[in-house]
């Protein structure tokens, strides 16, 4: 077991990769009542094209299957796993993102018991045609709920522009139509391929006895049979940047127009610390341009071009990376024109100055510190396969290494007009 002490934060992380490939990380947190455990597979909504374990031919599965699988794992022959956790005093949940599916519980008692339940329920799937059919109704309602949410539609509208014909733009839950095609057999295929422990991570944060917990995990895992560790072959469409859609809009029942603008990256990911560094630089760039010390932002706000709903940031995950700016606006054309100017001339922006840069570093240091108050946050940031073998503790040393010149260079290289896209939602004219 590897032990890493982070003196600056007065925190320790214990880690070990088990024989079956499972990556375990434990951060003991004294004084906290809550223990939070997160069991994650490096499999999400984008992984719709792959070679199933034990086969030679690639297959494509319907949209929304990773999310569907997440729902179904909770249902066992004798009872719903939520009930079991509840009885053991834990509250459980799960979520599916573009690139990961996570199962978690938080509890203030019976940590060992709940941990075993977590490992067992995720590793003992149970799907029948009946249970699969029944879930379609529930998930259809979930999809419709999101279809009514304008901000959700705004994001996906932009993604569809930036990544046309690519699963990075597919709604995580799929569509009401696509989920009808899902069968129990497909769920098994996806499960066998992606839920192998070597493709997964287990993180535990809270007031725990590390040796004891690691022992329980190892005993549990050694008592089960797993197939060989195999690299999973996933396929993604080769992209033609000319397919990028520059601008689209739709109407919805909203009170005011909404605009989302994004610029995507075009370089392949390395899945190592360089990816994390690049993402941090993109976030820092957007922070400088539009964050709390930005006079550029203040000017837009004071002129009523944007308001408190405005947000800007950078997203980086497996198979996609982009910067995005969005919010409610009164005049879409005006907002788009102004923001476009800022983005495409970013390397010359007065916001990219030493004073702002130094203030930003101070700010990031304090915010990073503050995030350590949350056991959930820590647990989610310990296993981050989108960046390789990285944890949240690697962030500040990287930030300290980054210079203003690096950000300016990145602005020139990344913020290009040919990779810019705009999505607008307009109110219906009654």
């Amino acid at each position, binding site marked *: 077991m590897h032990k890493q002490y982070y003196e*600056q*934060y*007065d925190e320790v992380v214990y880690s070990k990769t088990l024989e079956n490939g499972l990556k375990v990380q434990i951060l003991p*947190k*004294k*004084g*906290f*009542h*809550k223990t939070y455990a997160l069991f994650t597979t490096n499999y999400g909504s984008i992984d719709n094209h792959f070679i199933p374990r034990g086969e030679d031919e690639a297959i494509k599965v319907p949209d929304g299957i990773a999310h569907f699988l997440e729902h179904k794992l909770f249902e066992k022959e004798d009872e*719903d796993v*939520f*009930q079991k956790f509840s*009885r053991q*005093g*834990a*509250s*459980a949940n799960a979520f599916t993102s573009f690139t990961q599916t996570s199962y978690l519980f*938080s509890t*203030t*008692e019976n940590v060992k018991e709940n941990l075993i339940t977590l490992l067992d329920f995720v590793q003992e799937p149970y799907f029948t045609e009946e249970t699969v059919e*029944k*879930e379609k*109704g*529930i998930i259809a309602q979930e999809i419709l*709920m999101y*279809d*009514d*949410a*304008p901000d959700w539609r705004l994001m996906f509208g932009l993604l569809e522009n930036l990544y046309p014909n690519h699963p990075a733009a597919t709604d995580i839950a799929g569509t009401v139509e696509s989920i009808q095609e899902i069968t129990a057999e497909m769920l098994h295929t996806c499960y066998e391929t992606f839920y192998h422990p070597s493709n997964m991570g287990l993180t535990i944060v809270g007031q725990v006895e590390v040796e004891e917990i690691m022992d329980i995990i190892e005993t549990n895992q050694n008592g089960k049979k797993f197939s060989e560790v195999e690299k999973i072959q996933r396929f993604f469409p080769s992209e033609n940047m000319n397919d990028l859609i520059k601008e689209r809009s739709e109407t919805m*029942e909203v*009170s*005011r127009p909404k605009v989302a603008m994004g610029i995507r990256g075009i370089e392949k990911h390395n899945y190592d610390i360089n990816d994390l560094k690049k993402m941090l630089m993109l976030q820092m760039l957007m922070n400088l341009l539009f*964050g*709390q*010390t*930005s*006079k550029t*932002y*203040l000017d837009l706000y*004071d002129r*009523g071009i944007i*308001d*408190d*709903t405005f947000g800007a940031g950078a997203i980086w995950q497996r198979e996609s990376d982009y910067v995005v700016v969005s919010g409610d606006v009164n005049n879409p054309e005006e907002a788009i024109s102004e923001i476009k100017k800022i983005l495409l001339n970013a390397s010359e922006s007065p916001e990219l100055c030493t004073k702002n840069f130094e*203030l*930003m570093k*101070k*700010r*990031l*240091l*304090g*915010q*990073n*510190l*503050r995030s*350590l*108050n*949350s*056991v959930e946050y820590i647990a989610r940031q310990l296993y981050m396969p989108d960046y390789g073998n990285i944890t949240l503790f690697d962030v500040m040393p990287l930030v300290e290494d980054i210079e203003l010149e690096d950000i300016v260079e990145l602005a020139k290289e990344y913020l290009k007009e040919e990779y810019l896209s705009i999505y607008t939602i307009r109110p*219906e004219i009654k």
Partner: protein
Amino acid sequence: MSFEIKKGVHSHILVTDKYKTINLQFNFRKPLDVESLSKRAMLAAVMETNSLNYPSQTALGEALSDLYGSSFGTSSQRFGDEHLFRVEFIFPNPKFLKIDINEFYKEIFSFIQEIIFVPHVIDGKFHEPTFKREQENLLEEYASYRDDKQLYSALKLNELYYPDASHQVPGKGRAEELNTITPSSLYEVYQEMIAEDLIDVLVTGDIETDIINDAIASLPWTDRSAKDSDVLYLQRTEEEFRENTEIQEVNQAKLHMAFETPFLYGSDDYYAGLLFNGIFGGFSHSKLFINVREKESLAYYASSSVRSLTGLMTVQAGIDQKMAEKTEQIILEQLDAIRKGEISDNEIEQTKAMLTNSFLQTLDSPHRSMVRAYRDIATGVESLTAEEYFAELSAVTKEDIQRVAEMVKYRAKFILKGVDVDA
């Protein structure tokens, strides 16, 4: 530890070494009236945006960045039958930053004094451009409620359930009153709040009580006549069932039901009420979750929640609109089942475990632990330790739960649905 700083101004220091931050919460409380909703929402907006010596968001942003990413926020809300204005600050604990600790404390209290006592006021009026812009933003926020279908439905239900305007109107007010406020009348609202409200300052983190309390006491507080009004909302008296259905272009219908409940915060039945709500629709093992979502696949979500300061329990479900009647029926059947005593020992045990879990988790969050502590301070309810809380829950019997279920009354219903395909 609690201290009286001035008449009507108290500090409460909660020392703990488990956080990396120092968190302060300033609470201003007064009796509720409908105009205060808009007035204090405006005050919260302008005070969060800038101050006299940090006259722009950028200047404020720079000051916060310089304090190592500190942050603060204001909020204005209904609090039972009273109004609560809150300013909350989060500062990194300087022991983790390689800097002079005493210097840092001086800087943060200087910042606090600026935000609370030196608003952006010139010649008896709030800075006009800031005022105008925040007024517009608030008006736009009111208009946006319609975009969040669940929120919208909840607000419509309030209109049906509560008989008085101060409870029917959304917590941040409405255009009607907002449009009558001016930069100078807003300053009067501010002065009134500083001079007359009941004030409680809570602090938590790895701090020394004396040092922090001295710093808080040195801020320019004044005495005020300590009139403690009742936070708890008096029961509504209307008997008539009220309902409304609205049609919008939505894909998923919303069913919202309002019930009057007697188990207010601090009452003898409060713990029985917590168990009742947990079993009914408060957790994923609850009757609503199991019977509405899982068994019948009728809804993606079906849950209940209680506002313990006003005694309103709401049930919310997102459903296919053709299923509205059926869903309502099944929900009422679950209430009936509890009244009849169809509650297993398992359900009771699980609910007790989940409630205890929730309580303990609150203690892990600086913000939530202060919110809980403040609620006890304002209602005069004794703050319990985890053991005492668990003991209260343990003392509740199945008969108690049945009894409170009998007292629950179905009062109002709101349905939001799409255009009827076959009307």
